[in-house]
């Protein structure tokens, strides 16, 4: 920083060459991005004084504008959008650019609010889908349980059939006296066969239900994966913003 200039005013009045040198120094540091330098101790008697004051004024406005715009954008990259560039004191391009930045942060504010709402809705959706997955899991388990029962049922049917067969044989052995009993045994055998074929039909249906429910579970898992990826992407976007933020602050 080179604002301090130790010339004692009144002691010595500088010639124009000195002021041209001063003006050049200040303008060069400004063009190098150092907006700190100013011409100090301006001799208002010098005919160059208005020019020197104009240089200072130009730098004051540029400096103030850079600080204002930088602050507003630094806040925005921190996710705070209420920090507007204060337009007072700025004219022309400064004023217009300030308005442009403000429109941008107003827009960002709006988008951020919508994004937040969408995130909330997505979270709710994820919860609903997780519930659906749980319910489908229960359904899947229930059908497995039913399938295990089929084994038992068909075993019973087979055994019933065997019992009926044995009964028919025994009935035949006792001759005429066993005739009525043989009719009952054959009815029992028919019932056992019907029950077996019905069980097979139901088993077929249950297998279909299981296929459908495992497809449902697969679809739900894919949906959850996509939603998870979206959450990760949103988090990464926020992280990236934090990375680019640092130079905005230090500027």
């Amino acid at each position, binding site marked *: *920083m080179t604002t*301090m200039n130790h010339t004692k005013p009144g002691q010595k009045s500088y010639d124009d060459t000195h002021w041209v040198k001063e003006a050049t120094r200040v303008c060069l540091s400004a063009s190098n991005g150092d907006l700190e330098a100013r011409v100090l101790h301006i001799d208002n008697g010098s005919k160059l004084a208005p020019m020197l004051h104009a240089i200072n004024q130009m730098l004051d406005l540029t400096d103030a504008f850079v600080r204002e715009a930088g602050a507003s954008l630094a806040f925005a990259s921190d996710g705070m959008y209420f920090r507007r560039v204060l337009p*007072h*004191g700025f004219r022309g391009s400064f004023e217009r650019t300030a308005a442009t930045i403000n429109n941008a942060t107003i827009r960002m504010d709006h988008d951020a609010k919508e994004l937040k709402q969408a995130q909330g809705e997505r979270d709710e959706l994820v919860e609903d889908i997780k519930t659906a997955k749980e319910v489908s899991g229960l359904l899947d388990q229930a059908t497995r349980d039913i399938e295990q029962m089929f084994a038992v049922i068909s075993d019973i049917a087979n055994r019933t059939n065997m019992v009926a067969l044995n009964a028919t044989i025994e009935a035949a052995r006792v001759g005429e006296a066993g005739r009525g009993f043989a009719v009952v045994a054959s009815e029992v055998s028919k019932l056992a066969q019907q029950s077996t074929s019905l069980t097979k039909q139901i088993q077929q249906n249950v297998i279909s239900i299981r296929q459908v429910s495992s497809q449902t579970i697969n679809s739900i898992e894919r949906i959850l994966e996509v939603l998870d990826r979206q959450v990760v992407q949103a988090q990464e976007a926020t992280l990236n913003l934090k990375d680019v933020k640092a130079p905005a602050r230090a500027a």
Partner: protein
Amino acid sequence: MARDWSLTGNERFFDHDEIIVSKTDTKGRITYANEVFQRVALYTEEELLGKSHNIVRHPDMPRCVFKFLWDRISTGHEVFAYVVNRCKNGDYYWVFAHVTPTYNEHGRIVSYHSSRRVPDAGALEQIKPLYRELLDIEQRYRTPREQWEASLPALVGKLESLGLSYDELIFTLCA
């Protein structure tokens, strides 16, 4: 040298499209004051350069505002504040000040900068009673430290009761 605190009660003004600019070193000693500053505060550049910025301090300003200001800028943050300043002749002028640190290429704070605009009249209506309140609290204590230790919580409490951060309060006021 005894500090001249005499006041005239006269208010001075500057234009809406003007800004009062000053720069200080890290200790708050003035290294630059623009023409508008000199004209409004009635000091020459020579009288200001090298002096502590409290040269324009007005006794109506609560101490905790400056404590807050320095806490913010010395930790690298910008700060906005409504400030009433004292002119050389005892007149006063209100400003809406923006104070920011300036960094060197290594990211270290090397100086401070302030630009001041004409404050919004509506905002001042709300700020004045708040400052009065803070000042009343401070006047019950003797040392500067006791003063801001008592009034700063009142300022913070006020913000909390409004549910706003300091920055949000400032921007709500000037919106």
